[in-house]
């Protein structure tokens, strides 16, 4: 991995580690790699993965990397062009969070996570499409149109599929190989579910590892950034660069960032992996259970001991989430008032309140309005105790379930999502059916735990399925190690055929 880097025919076959090592060893220049990715981004516009393309940013970073190599001052991500989810504020570059209410908003500052990546030598290919304000599981709530998954069913029908969400542009970009790695954010599965749908790797670290400063807020007690890439090693490399204490985020953890890449070890001897029985639910396709059973065998083969465990409050996680997240969103999204940034609608002869109401009516999409109204309702006088306070208590019980399980085991293994990717339009009429996509992802979010999705196989229609590994708080290393053990045994080399 560290020497003898070679040059592939197609430079977009290079992932993050390969670019880093090849630039260092002189197998190719950073500029060549970046030009190949810039061309791939342009060619793939039909996927609608990017809202804004910034080739000049990526090329400037590449030239800096080539100069750094000449002077012997390479950085951890020198010359690696990345995609940045449009939830991250990028200085001088439009940042919309997928919402028309922020169209044209060019922040005067850089988010801490993107600043960390750029300080590590990475460049930006552009801003990635996403569900509006990260509220969605299919990327169909974006104000800029849905992202089309690069994957298609093997039935030859060519139906347009959802890449998952909310980090759908991020997932599609990695799966289509138009970016070697991207940032995502995960509030209730928004990194893991799209990673599973598109056959890539994504990790949500422990809450507080990555600064939230400069990330457009959705539900602040849940929002957490993380990397999405082609393999576990690339995720470890990116996560190291993204993480770290930030005094500008009051919930940022003041802890050193472990050397996750160096610590990668797929030998799971002595590790105990729990299989939570509550994650076997009705109505889930047989293929999901089959891949889960296969994952159990792979972890045994890697030396782990498999232990059945119980997380009794699992079934309450999703309804708990759909009180807490909308409540926090209704408060966070109060700032979009047409005064300080973004869109303004001024009805003729209307006053200030009319302007607020018209601006928010015109600027927000249907799902965002729905969630703001749910949140407003559960926080309103007379209902706060029955809904919000009770949900925070159940949330404590869900976290306690995990604490009990981690007295017996080191990790948990579950499916990432209850199905493979679905077609665009198939679930938009039924909010609760859409919410059920995150049934396996939300519990770890509520407890703030690190969790990762790794591709494990294909379903009967040739679509990717992912496995989720959940770890103890701050134990990203063992999550990554178990992910690596699965990755090595799954040998998942499937990729969508380029039709775009």
């Amino acid at each position, binding site marked *: 991995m560290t020497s003898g880097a070679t040059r592939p025919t197609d430079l977009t076959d290079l992932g993050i580690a390969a670019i880093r090592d090849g630039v260092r060893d002189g197998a190719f220049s950073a500029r060549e790699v970046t030009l190949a990715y810039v061309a791939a981004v342009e060619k793939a516009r039909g996927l609608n993965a990017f809202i804004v393309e910034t080739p000049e940013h990526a090329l400037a970073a590449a030239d800096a990397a080539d100069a750094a190599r000449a002077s012997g001052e390479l950085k951890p991500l020198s010359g690696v062009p990345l995609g940045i989810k449009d939830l991250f504020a990028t200085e001088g570059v439009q940042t919309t969070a997928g919402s028309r209410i922020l169209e044209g908003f060019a922040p005067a500052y850089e988010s801490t996570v993107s600043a960390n990546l750029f300080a590590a030598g990475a460049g930006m290919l552009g801003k990635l499409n996403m569900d509006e304000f990260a509220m969605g599981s299919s990327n169909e709530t974006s104000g800029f149109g849905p992202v089309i998954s690069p994957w298609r069913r093997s039935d030859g029908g060519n139906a347009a599929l959802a890449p998952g969400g909310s980090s759908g542009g991020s997932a599609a970009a990695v799966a289509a190989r138009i970016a070697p790695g991207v940032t995502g954010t995960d509030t209730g599965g928004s990194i893991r579910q799209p990673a599973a749908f598109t056959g890539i790797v994504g990790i949500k670290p422990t809450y507080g590892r990555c600064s939230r400063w400069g990330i457009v807020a959705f539900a602040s007690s849940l929002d957490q950034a993380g990397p999405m890439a082609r393999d576990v090693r690339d995720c470890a490399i990116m996560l190291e660069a993204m993480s770290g204490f930030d005094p500008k985020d009051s919930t940022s953890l003041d802890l050193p960032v472990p050397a996750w890449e160096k610590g990668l070890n797929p030998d799971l001897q002595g590790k105990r992996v729990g299989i939570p029985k509550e994650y076997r639910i009705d109505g889930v396709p047989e293929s999901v259970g089959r891949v889960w059973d296969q994952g159990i065998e792979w972890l045994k083969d890697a030396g782990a001991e498999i232990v059945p465990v119980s997380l009794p409050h699992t079934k309450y996680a999703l309804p708990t989430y759909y009180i807490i997240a909308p409540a926090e969103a209704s408060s966070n999204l109060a700032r979009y008032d047409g005064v300080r940034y973004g869109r303004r609608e001024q009805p003729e002869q209307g006053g200030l309140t009319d302007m607020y*109401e018209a601006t928010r009516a015109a600027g927000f999409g249907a799902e965002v309005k729905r969630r703001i109204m749910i949140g407003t309702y559960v926080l309103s006088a007379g209902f706060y105790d029955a809904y919000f306070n009770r949900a925070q208590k159940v949330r*404590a019980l869900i976290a306690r379930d995990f604490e009990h399980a981690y007295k017996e085991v080191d990790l948990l293994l579950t499916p990432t999502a209850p199905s493979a990717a679905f077609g665009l339009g198939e679930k938009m009429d039924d909010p609760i059916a859409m919410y059920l996509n995150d049934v396996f992802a939300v519990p770890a979010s509520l407890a703030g735990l690190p969790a990762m999705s790794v591709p494990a196989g294909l379903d009967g229609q040739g679509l990717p399925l992912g496995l989720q590994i959940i770890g103890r708080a701050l134990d990203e290393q063992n999550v990554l190690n178990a992910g690596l053990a699965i990755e090595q045994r799954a040998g998942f080399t499937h990729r969508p055929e380029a039709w775009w």
Partner: protein
Amino acid sequence: MSVDSHTVRHIAKLARIAVSDAEVAALAPELSNILGWVEQLQEVDVEGVEPMTAVIPNKLRLRDDVVTDGGIRDAVLKNAPMAEHGFFAVPKVIE
């Protein structure tokens, strides 16, 4: 929990979102469905459980009470839909 159109209008008012009659008619059953679905939390025994306030134990930090930022008025106003005389401008509030 059933949400009627009167309640939808009240919530929309609190949330400062203008809603048309058609939207109210669509939102009432949608919100009722979602609120009916989260009702299942009522069956959980939460006796003696403290509401969660932080997922990872983390003491909130205090910093010195000093000015650390400022003097960037133009940057602050740069994205305003309307700014006049160095201020954000809004429709007339006081007659």
